[in-house]
């Protein structure tokens, strides 16, 4: 079918085109406690066609895209290409060049044994150290073997074969007739049994502590320490500020060579896009447009080095060699864990949903479990929220020098924001 589609596109007279063909063979398992509620198989193919047309004597380039069924007839393919050719003339953008092919040779990868990976997840969950007061309520396992082929009018024809996994786990803890739950969602390439066991064991301990909490007492500001995966949202904010679309739209004011803060009093962040991180679910040699993914420093010691993103916006900024980033590594921390864990601070380990607004820099999160540390004294607290703006925190932010990986991000193990607004939950 793809050969026929390519032939129709080539003879259509359009300026350019891309075909993305994604085949997924997925296994899913849904457990209540440790009993199987449902099992599912997914065997699907999604073919998306994008067509480009020039206008205004080459000053403009429009594009339109649509999905076509893998069972489409030749007549349906011809109609789709014709419709897209017309629609692409309506969505005119400033002209840009399409992604060229590369001489670099990539490994296509190989088929994943989704039965083995699924069994690893099931075995790991069965071996968790549950107790009478902390256990697993339910979990959902998703394991896929994915083949992605990208073909373009510029000569790109690349194929990648990779595994993709996710497990959602709900942990319960109970005490004196009261029960609470903690939610976890892990993504990875294959099953990271050791990491899963380690994190879920810690989660059960958090559950135990949450039942011993007092209402969060602070109404004002406090230093807040992030020691888990919620900190990824903070570092995602920096990477997003470097995206070519944010720069070109003037939504981000980051400038190459100009520090992101006028006077650093804390640590200076370094953000690097990486092609590969161990067992990441986002390890790819090329992005969705066919651009080669390379290890690239985006921000170094708090100074923007390289904008990054889609072909169109990068071209507008005069950047020829760029890509849509997948994995990120963040460094720049100078403190030890002991240094960052000193004085009075609130360590929030469970939020309802911690968020960093990528446009305004505002941060929010309801506190489900935090530890209020003050010297040798530590009190578990819950309720209330934290809020503030990254624009205010960048100057004094501290990071630990060691790092922890959360799927597609490797970030400092500890992140400390100073003078965060804390809304307490007392009376």
């Amino acid at each position, binding site marked *: 079918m793809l050969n026929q589609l390519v032939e129709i596109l080539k003879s259509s007279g359009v300026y350019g085109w891309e075909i993305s063909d994604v085949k997924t063979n997925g*296994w899913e398992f*849904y457990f*209540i406690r*440790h*009993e*199987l*509620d*449902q*099992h*599912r*198989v997914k*065997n*699907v*193919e*999604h073919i*998306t066609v994008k067509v480009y047309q020039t206008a205004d004597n080459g000053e403009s380039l429009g594009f339109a*895209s649509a*999905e076509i*069924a*893998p*069972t489409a007839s030749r007549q349906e393919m011809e109609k789709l290409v014709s419709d897209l050719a017309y*629609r692409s003339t*309506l969505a005119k*953008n*400033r002209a840009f060049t399409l992604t060229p092919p590369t001489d670099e040779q990539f490994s296509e990868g190989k088929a994943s044994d989704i039965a083995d990976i*699924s*069994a690893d997840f*099931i*075995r790991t969950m*069965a071996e968790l150290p549950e107790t009478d007061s902390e256990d697993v*309520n*339910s979990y959902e396992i998703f394991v896929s073997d994915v083949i992605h082929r990208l073909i373009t009018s510029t000569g790109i024809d690349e194929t990648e074969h990779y595994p993709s996994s*996710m497990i*959602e786990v*709900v942990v319960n803890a109970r005490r004196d007739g009261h*029960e*609470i*739950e903690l939610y976890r*969602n892990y993504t990875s390439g294959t099953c990271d049994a050791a990491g899963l066991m380690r994190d879920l064991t810690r989660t059960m301990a958090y559950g135990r502590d949450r039942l011993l909490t007092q209402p969060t007492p602070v*109404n*004002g500001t406090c230093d807040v320490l992030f020691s888990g995966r919620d900190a990824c949202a903070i570092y995602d904010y920096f990477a997003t500020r470097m995206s070519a*679309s944010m720069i*070109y*739209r003037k*939504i981000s004011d980051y400038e190459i060579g100009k520090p992101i803060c006028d006077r650093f009093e804390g640590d200076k962040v370094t953000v690097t896009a990486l092609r590969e991180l161990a067992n990441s679910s986002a390890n790819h040699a090329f992005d969705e447009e066919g651009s080669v993914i390379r290890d690239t420093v985006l921000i170094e010691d708090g100074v923007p080095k390289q904008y990054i993103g889609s072909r*169109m916006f990068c071209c*507008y900024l005069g950047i020829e060699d760029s890509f849509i980033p997948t994995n990120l590594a963040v460094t720049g921390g100078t403190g030890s864990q002991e240094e960052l864990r000193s004085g009075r601070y609130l360590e929030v380990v469970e939020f*309802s*949903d911690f968020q960093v607004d990528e*446009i*305004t820099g505002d941060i*929010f*999160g*309801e506190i*489900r479990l935090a530890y209020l540390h003050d010297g040798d004294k530590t009190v578990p607290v819950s*309720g*209330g929220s934290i*809020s503030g703006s990254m624009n205010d925190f960048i100057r004094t932010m501290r990071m630990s020098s060691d790092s922890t990986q959360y799927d597609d991000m490797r970030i400092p193990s500890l992140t400390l924001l100073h003078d965060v*607004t804390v809304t307490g*939950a007392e009376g």
Partner: protein
Amino acid sequence: MKAKFSDYLGSIKPGLKEMIRILRKDYDYVSVLATDSRGLAVRISQRSRSVTDDTMTAERGIVVRVCKGGQYAEYAFNQFDPAAPDKAAAEVRGALEAQLVMLRLAGVKTYRTPLLPDEEQSLFVEKETQQLPETADVKALVEKLGGISDKAMTLSEFAVECIVSAQSTHICKLFLTEHRDLSQSYVYSEGAIFMIVNREGNTQVAYESVSGLCGPELFDTMEGKLQKAVDTCAELLDAERIQPGEYDIIASPEVTGLIAHEAFGHGVEMDMFVKNRALGAEYIGKRVGSDMCTMHEGALCAENVTSYAFDDEGTLAGDVTEIDHGILRTGICDALSALRLGVQPTGNGKRENFEHKVYTRMTNTMFDSGTDSLEDMIASIDHGYLLEGMESGMEDPKHWGIQCIIKMGREIRDGKLTGKVVAPIIMTGYVPDLLGGICMLSPHREVFGSGGCGKGYKEWVKVADGGPYLKTKARLG
């Protein structure tokens, strides 16, 4: 005109019925959901334009649900040859048996569930629309949205970008079992304006939306929302931070909808009852809000983006009174959870798309209205805030916590709006306290359907929510 049902689904229906007949020899229950929903999405800004058919609910595919010995399983695929139903049936059997081999080796136990009923039933619904996304005048739509974006840039000296998006989807679904044959076709649309301003490094964004159970004709109403987005941006540029604390609040209808959705929307999804994940199960028949608090949920209780005729398990749409004058009466339920709990399904079994499992999900979640005017509500407050603009929310059905991110608050002092605006706001609290504090409700209700809803952090579906202006107490930060 009627939204015409999919020719494609009509053409494969005989083959699907034959596949069901073949599979019934091996399974105690077999159902098929086949979808063919076509979309149109146009996004115009000052610096980029795109046209695609990719909307949140556009899809074409098939999911087969089977049950044997109390164990349910599903097979989702999108390459079906109606002339070879035996081949498809063999594919389903083979794929699910391969999983069972691994599960047996792993020693996994089954959570057994009774058989779904399969009484004779047929339904064919084509809802009204003025236009269809697949035949819409895309050129005119691009020009219309471009005109809105261009006009926005003239209305604020601080404007840096205005993104205008419009999406319309023609939903067609076919549900078949041995004895049931249900078809539905309807169109819903949604549009949004994102206005972005920057003044001396202070970037702010305002968002206005429209949604409805209708075709692309909806987008004619979008320009009327522009000035509000521009005005909101101007107010946000001068907004101050709120002093954290507990306040009297008036929730605008949009914020009221967010509270409904997060408080007793997720909290009474009864698949959570099956897993003992919701405190609500212990509170049926008990007080969870003030006498003024009445809440409905169901595809039939409003006409908006998720007002279907039947859900993704073939259960007809309903209208459930969840909270009646402060008393929690019932929850909402998908078909399998209903069997496990011994209750009737409510028409709330939804999938993100044919590739995804069914969960109990919301449709339209609405607070009932009251008789108090907004002016009287404001006059009743010594120091508090009128909250406007919904950003996001998160529930905790097991502990009844709630997190709502709200765009801004208008300060009220001594019964009057002072003109001072605070932003952004995070509202948190304990759900029964929040609902127990409801003491005034306005007569006018609004429905909002431009957002999506996840279960945890996945399984995104369309939902709508809303209600009147509502006065209560809340913790703001």
